[in-house]
Each structure stands twice: as structure tokens, then as C-alpha cells.
């Protein structure tokens, strides 16, 4: 397959026709795998809290629908966890192979968060197994604590992985970056300092608030879709989806408050510790006071200065203050992705607040009855909006990740900003992306195979979930919980006998 290969240029010919640049391919492979992995992480981080909230409401209100939500979604959580973990393993191997030089430096300086993440991952696995199999084996409170512990494990995993990302943005403190930049000697290594790099102040809250919001938002999208588009829903399914929709909306609206603060805080942190990255994300070419916010064709004067400092006249550094070699060669991609991320996030937060207000304050809903807010779980317009905006949060999530990664270019490991004799600023970086990739063309063929396997996993997951629930209707679960309590097993086969009692219970509930 490979005819010619040139290590110095990293280009090789496939079948003598088409040039493939391994610098591009390695990045595409990592981006693709990571994009697939983060698709599953927001569920891993948000679902445990949704499930435990449903379980709590189920017990408190003696409501079988909430318990059915908790039980059914705990199966979903387990399947998504398994697929997400498998893709995570693929990323780990890509780090060892396609990005081994970067991984070498991480191992020498910043491996501690990864090692601690193993503890968090194991906690998650143990708690997940205990939770799934502990429905009828322990007290309700103990069971809910186990569910929360899954969430704690997944959030901690997310935090620790994001810490490594923060370290790539601000490695100062964990080792002497300036000395490494000047001499190539790794000195002043402090693994403990690497546990909270400066960029973590902005990144960690953003990661937590963002993943919860996308998780709860996509649940709003799912339940809205079911309500808006499913034909001939029975009473059980309607009640089930209504509760899911309401709970997911409340959780998303609550988290949106945290998200609003986290987003604002992350911008201010960038202003003070990574002004070059801020300039990239905002597409700011010129250093200026009263800096505008550019969103697509719209430019709002002074807004960027105001949002980053609370002072509309503050000076914000643009590309003109930095040496040209440090400019992000794909700044336009980072900027556009950031615009999509921020716009969808802000719209999503506003919509969730409005929907939650309509549920919480009926008078507010009635005031806007022309928008269908007097009954948002039944009227088409709020359901359509919830469906679209809810699922668009996944796009916002991916766009945010693209902005964060492409906005760090051309460096894979950043460094301190220093002023040159010409007055311009430069970055004393740890590692350039162009130095970190693996030019070996063997990665190409197997990389395509990995990408195909991941695509199959992503497409196959909903199909597998659909098949898992194909013979398990909602009313079946609701009635089983009503008759037997929450102790019934998710895997209990429906026998003739239980089916008779199910029919009888169904009749009772329908009469009510």
C-alpha cells in the first residue's frame, strides 16, 4: 500500500496517487477518537445525578414512574459506560503510539493525575457494579449513596483528565519550563504542583458545569423528542416521559446558573494567564482598548473588554502583540468553534431557565401561553424547542472541545509568556505540535481501522440500547414496581404468571 515515504516531510503516497500528511492524519485521528470519547463522558458525568434524583423522588413521593426512570436509565448508564471506556482505551493506546513524544514528557512530569484517575475509574466501576446489582440488596439511602459515588467517581475522573489538559496550557510550576525551553534539561520537577496548574481554575468549573449541562440538556432533548414525535403513547409512557422531561429541565436550569458563572470565569482566567489563546478564540487581531466581541458578522464594541475585566475600556491583547511564529495557524477554526460553543450554550441556558420557570411558576407559564408555556410538556412548540436546543448542546460540547484544542496551537505543551527585545510577546513553550506527532505511515491504515471501529461503536450503541429495551415496555416496568416495589430485577424475565398480575394492575391504574 505504501510506496514512498519521506520522514523529513512526513508525507507519503498511497497507491502512488494521493499525498497523505501524517502531521494532519495523526491530529485527525486523535481529534476523532477524542470527539467520540467526549460524546460519552457528559453522560457518564451527568447520568448518575439524574438517576439518583429520580430514585430519591420515587421514594419520597412513592412514585413508580420516577423509580422506573432510575432503573431504566441505570441500564443505559452501564451500556454507555462500557462503550465510553472502550473508546478511552483506544485513546490511551494512541497516546502511546501516535503521540509518544508528548506522552513521554507527560510521563516524566505530569503522570500523577492519570494515576489518580485510575483510582477514580476503579471507584466508578466498583460503585456502578454495586449500584446495578444492589437494588434489592440494601437500604434505600445506602443505594442512593452508591449512585452518588458513581457520579463522584466520574466527575473526579473528568477533573483529573482536565487537569492534564490544564497542565498542557500552563505547565509552569510542575517543572522549569523556561529552562527546558532554553536548554532542553528537565529540572525543578514537582509532581504535586502539577495537580493544580493555573489554567485549572478556569477549566475545571467549565468542564463540570458544561458536562452536566450537556447531559441534562440532551435528556431534555430525548424526552421532548419522545413526547413530540412518538405516536399512540399510552398513559404510562406519557407520565414517564413527563417526569423525565421535568426533572431533566430543572437540573439543566439549575446547572445553567453554575455554567454562566463558569463561562464568565473561564474568560477572565484566559485574559490573565493565556491572553494569546483568548485572542485566538475571540479572533482579535489588534491589541486595543474597548475591544469588541466578534460573533460571526456581528461586532459589539467594548463587550470583550467588559466581559473579561468588567471594564469596557480595558486593553485586550490581540495577535499584533505577539511574535508571528506563535500565532495559531488555524485560529479561524478555533474562533468559529468557540462562537458556536458560546452561542449555543447561552441560548440553551436561557431556554432551560424559561422552561423551568414555566414548570415551577404556572402563572409565568400562563402569561406566555401563546408560546405553549402554559403546558410545556404537552404543547408542540416547547417540545420542539426542547428537542432541538437540548440536542444542540452536544454540538456545543464538541465545538467547545474543538475550540479548546485548536486554540492551543501551534503548541501542544504551552509555557510562560515573555517579552522580546522588540516589545512583542512570545511563548517559551514545552513542545510544539509539529514536533510531537509520529510521522510513521504505519499509523495510517490502522488508524482508519480504529476510526471505523469507533464509528461502528457509536452507531451500534443506540441500536443495542433499542434492542435491549425492545421487549421491555415502560408500563411493564412501572407496574412491576407498583406490584413488587423497586426490588424487581431489570433482567427478570416476564413469566406468564407475572404477566397476568401485570394486566390486572394495569387495569387498576387505568381505572384510577
Amino acid at each position, binding site marked *: 500500500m505504501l510506496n514512498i515515504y519521506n*520522514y523529513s516531510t512526513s508525507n507519503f503516497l498511497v497507491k502512488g496517487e494521493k499525498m497523505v500528511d501524517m502531521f494532519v492524519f495523526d491530529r485527525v485521528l486523535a481529534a476523532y477518537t477524542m470527539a467520540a470519547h467526549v460524546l460519552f463522558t457528559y453522560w457518564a458525568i451527568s447520568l448518575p445525578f439524574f438517576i439518583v434524583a429520580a430514585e430519591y423522588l420515587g421514594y419520597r413521593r412513592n412514585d413508580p414512574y420516577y423509580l422506573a426512570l432510575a432503573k431504566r436509565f441505570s441500564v443505559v448508564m452501564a451500556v454507555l459506560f*462500557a462503550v465510553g*471506556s*472502550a473508546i*478511552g*482505551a*483506544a485513546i*490511551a*493506546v494512541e497516546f*502511546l*503510539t501516535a*503521540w*509518544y*513524544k508528548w*506522552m*513521554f*514528557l*507527560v*510521563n*516524566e*512530569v505530569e*503522570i*500523577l493525575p*492519570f*494515576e489518580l*484517575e*485510575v*483510582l477514580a*475509574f*476503579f471507584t466508578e*466501576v*466498583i460503585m456502578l*457494579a*454495586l449500584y446495578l*446489582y*444492589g437494588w434489592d440488596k440494601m437500604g434505600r439511602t445506602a443505594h442512593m449513596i452508591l449512585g452518588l459515588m458513581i457520579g463522584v467517581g466520574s466527575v473526579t475522573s473528568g477533573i483529573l483528565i482536565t487537569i492534564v489538559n490544564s497542565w498542557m496550557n500552563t505547565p509552569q510550576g510542575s517543572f522549569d519550563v523556561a529552562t*527546558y525551553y532554553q536548554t*532542553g*534539561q*528537565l529540572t525543578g*520537577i*514537582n*509532581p504535586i504542583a502539577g495537580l493544580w496548574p493555573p489554567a485549572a481554575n478556569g477549566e475545571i468549573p467549565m468542564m463540570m458545569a458544561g458536562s452536566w449541562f450537556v447531559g441534562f440538556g440532551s435528556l431534555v432533548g430525548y424526552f421532548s423528542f419522545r413526547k413530540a414525535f412518538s405516536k399512540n403513547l399510552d398513559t404510562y409512557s406519557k407520565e414517564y416521559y413527563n417526569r423525565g422531561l421535568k426533572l431533566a429541565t430543572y437540573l439543566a436550569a439549575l446547572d445553567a446558573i453554575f455554567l454562566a458563572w463558569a463561562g464568565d470565569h473561564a474568560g477572565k482566567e484566559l485574559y490573565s494567564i493565556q491572553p494569546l489563546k483568548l485572542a485566538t478564540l475571540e479572533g482579535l487581531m489588534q491589541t486595543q482598548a474597548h475591544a469588541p466581541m466578534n460573533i460571526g458578522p456581528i461586532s459589539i464594541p467594548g463587550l470583550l473588554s467588559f466581559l473579561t475585566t468588567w471594564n469596557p475600556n480595558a486593553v485586550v491583547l490581540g495577535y499584533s502583540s505577539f511574535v508571528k511564529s506563535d500565532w495559531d495557524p488555524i485560529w479561524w477554526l478555533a474562533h468559529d468553534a468557540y462562537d458556536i460553543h458560546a452561542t449555543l450554550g447561552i441560548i440553551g441556558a436561557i431556554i432551560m431557565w424559561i422552561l423551568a420557570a414555566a414548570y415551577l411558576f404556572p402563572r409565568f407559564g400562563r402569561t406566555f401561553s401563546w408560546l405553549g408555556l402554559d403546558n410545556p410538556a404537552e404543547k408542540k412548540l416547547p417540545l420542539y424547542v426542547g428537542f432541538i436546543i437540548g440536542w444542540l448542546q452536544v454540538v456545543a460540547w464538541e465545538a467547545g472541545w474543538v475550540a479548546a484544542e485548536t486554540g492551543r496551537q501551534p503548541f501542544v505543551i504551552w509555557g510562560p509568556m515573555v517579552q522580546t527585545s522588540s516589545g512583542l510577546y512570545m511563548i517559551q513553550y514545552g*513542545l*510544539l505540535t509539529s*514536533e*510531537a506527532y*509520529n510521522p*510513521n505511515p*504505519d*499509523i495510517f491504515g*490502522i488508524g482508519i481501522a*480504529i476510526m471505523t*471501529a469507533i464509528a*461502528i461503536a457509536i452507531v*451500534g450503541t443506540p441500536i*443495542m440500547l433499542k434492542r*435491549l429495551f425492545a421487549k421491555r415496555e415502560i408500563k411493564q416496568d412501572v407496574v412491576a414496581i407498583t406490584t413488587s416495589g423497586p426490588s424487581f*430485577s431489570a*433482567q427478570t424475565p416476564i413469566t406468564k404468571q407475572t404477566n397476568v398480575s401485570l394486566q390486572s394492575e394495569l387495569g387498576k391504574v387505568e381505572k384510577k
Partner: protein
Amino acid sequence: MNPYVLFFFIPLGWFVTMFMLEAGSVVMIPICRYENYRERMIFVVGSLWAIIATSLVYTVVTLDGLFAPIMYATGEALLGVLLALVVILAFHHFLIGVAEGADSLGRHATSKLYLTAAVPFVLLVAFLGNTIFTSVFSGYGIGLKLPLTTVATVLEKGDLPYILHTAPNTQVFYPNYMQMIFNPFNWVFFVAVVLYVVYFTVTFYGIKERFLVGILALTLAHALFLASTAVWLPIVFSSAVGNAGFWIYVILTYVLLYLATHINVPWRQVWIVLLTWIGAIMFGVFTQGYILYDTTHSILAPLGLPAVPASLLLTIQPTLVAGTVVLGVAAFLVIGGVSAVSYKLLYKQAVKRAEEAKTETK
């Protein structure tokens, strides 16, 4: 032997043991004639998802944490095998997962079909894992772009970061996949591993009807392990045969096979897992911490070194010390916690459910 190098064999040995358990069960399920053993094999495969995933992650992170410079070997020489392993591992997980799902839904014929389809993937994973293992210790297929003494000096002085910084395109290793895969050591060792898996499976499930197969497999496995190391990895062979512990180990494997198949010895599964894990760690001890033995022995022996000491590849000291503490704690969680959960909850629950189902049918 350097304690950090020895430490690595704890997760590696554990992963190898768990994978043997899985591989033996998956391969046996479609061909096993005895329903009672087959049923237990299905339960075991279903209970292993947590422990297999965690022990693999634990092994990879331990490798990262202890041996930072080994990234050059993984990225330059082992990349093809490692990446192929991930793809095959994905299909292996998928097929076993679907089989488990089908089984839990009562579709046993579909489950058997998927498990049969998983068999070649299980064997491929085992073979590729074996290939990485043998090539790291023997050096087959891992070529050096630079003179060995230069590489050793760079590693000894801790100058690899300097090389990365000043000449990032420097290549240290190069792969020779034909040699890596098609060398006799790899194949003979693989056959020995397969035979050991046969013994492991017979002992783990206490299959009395296959006692003789177990003895034959175990004897051949021991013979092939010894013969292959005698020819291609003499440092391991001479360490093993000169060590009384090894011979006690060999005797114990036979004793356990008899006890497991003829007398229902309590904690049968625990003993065979423990014995195999100890065996894998023993292999590590017998390497005396040297890698790339066959390909570097003739160059380094005149300099007073039998091969490349793995301790040259250790991570920088402060990171290494901090990381080892965390990895030690993780060992308790993965080897103790996850195993206990897998056994007490996943396995026991599956057995209980099956017994309840049988009672209902009666």
C-alpha cells in the same frame, strides 16, 4: 532487581491471569460438552467485564508511570502491533458484550453464535499480546536506529528530554514486524501459553472429565516454557532451573490440578488465579530486570551487562516516587475491590439467578 521494575509485574501478571481466565472460558463455551461447566463459563465471562477493563487500564497507566522513556519503543517499534491490538480488542469486547446481552434476554442460541464469533478475536488478542511480551524481552523486531551504547548512555544520563527538545525528529527504534511476529520464540512461547490456558481452565472449573488433558497440557506448557527460554531467553531459563521456588511452583501446579478435579478443594478458583499470578510475577523476577536480551546480549556482554537493564527506562525520580504510592493504592482497589465485586456480586448473582430460574422451571 530494581523494585520499580519488579513492581510492574504486579499489574502485568494480574492482567495476564485475568485474560487467561477469559480466553479459556470464551474458547471453551462453544465446544464444551458438559452443560454444568458451560453454564459456569458463561457466568464467569459475564462477570469479568469490570475486572478485565480495570486491569488493562491499570497495566497501561503503570507502564506510563514507571517507564517514561519506553514511549519511544511503543511509538517507534511497537506501534503497529499496539494499534492493531486495540482494533481487535474492540471487536472482542463488542462480540462478548452482545453475547452477554443476548444471554440476559434469554436468547441463548444467539449468545453462543456471538461467543463463537469472538473466539478468533480472543486468540488474536492473546497472540498479539504475546508478541509484544516476547519482543520486549528478546528484542526481536525492535531495531535500533542509533548505536546501542549511545542509546544506553543517553538513557543513563537522562538526556532523552534534551534529545526530544533539540532534535525532535530523532528516531531511536524502528520496527521489523516480520521478525517480531514470525520468530520461533514468539510461536513456541504462544503455544506454551495456550497450553497453560487449557490447564488453567480445567483447574479453574474443576473439570474432572478432562483431568488427563489438563496434565498433558500442563506438562507440555512447562516443557515449552523451559525449552523456549533455554534457547532464546537463557537468563530466564538459568534463573528458573537454579531456583528451588520454581520447582515448588511446578509441583504445586500439578497438585492443584489433582485437588481441583478430584477433590472439591475449597477456594479452587482463588488458588489457580493466585498461582498463575505468582507464576507471571516469577517470570518477571527471572528476567532479572533485563530486556531486549537476545538482540543486545552479544553487544553488551563484553561491557559486563547481560542485556539492557529496564531500570534505565525508569521515569524521573520525583514523578516516579509520587506515582508509585498512588499505583500501590490502586493495586488494592483493582486486585482486591474489583475482584471482590466481580466475584461476590456479578458471579454469585448470576449463579443465584440461574438457580432460581431452574427452580421456577421445575
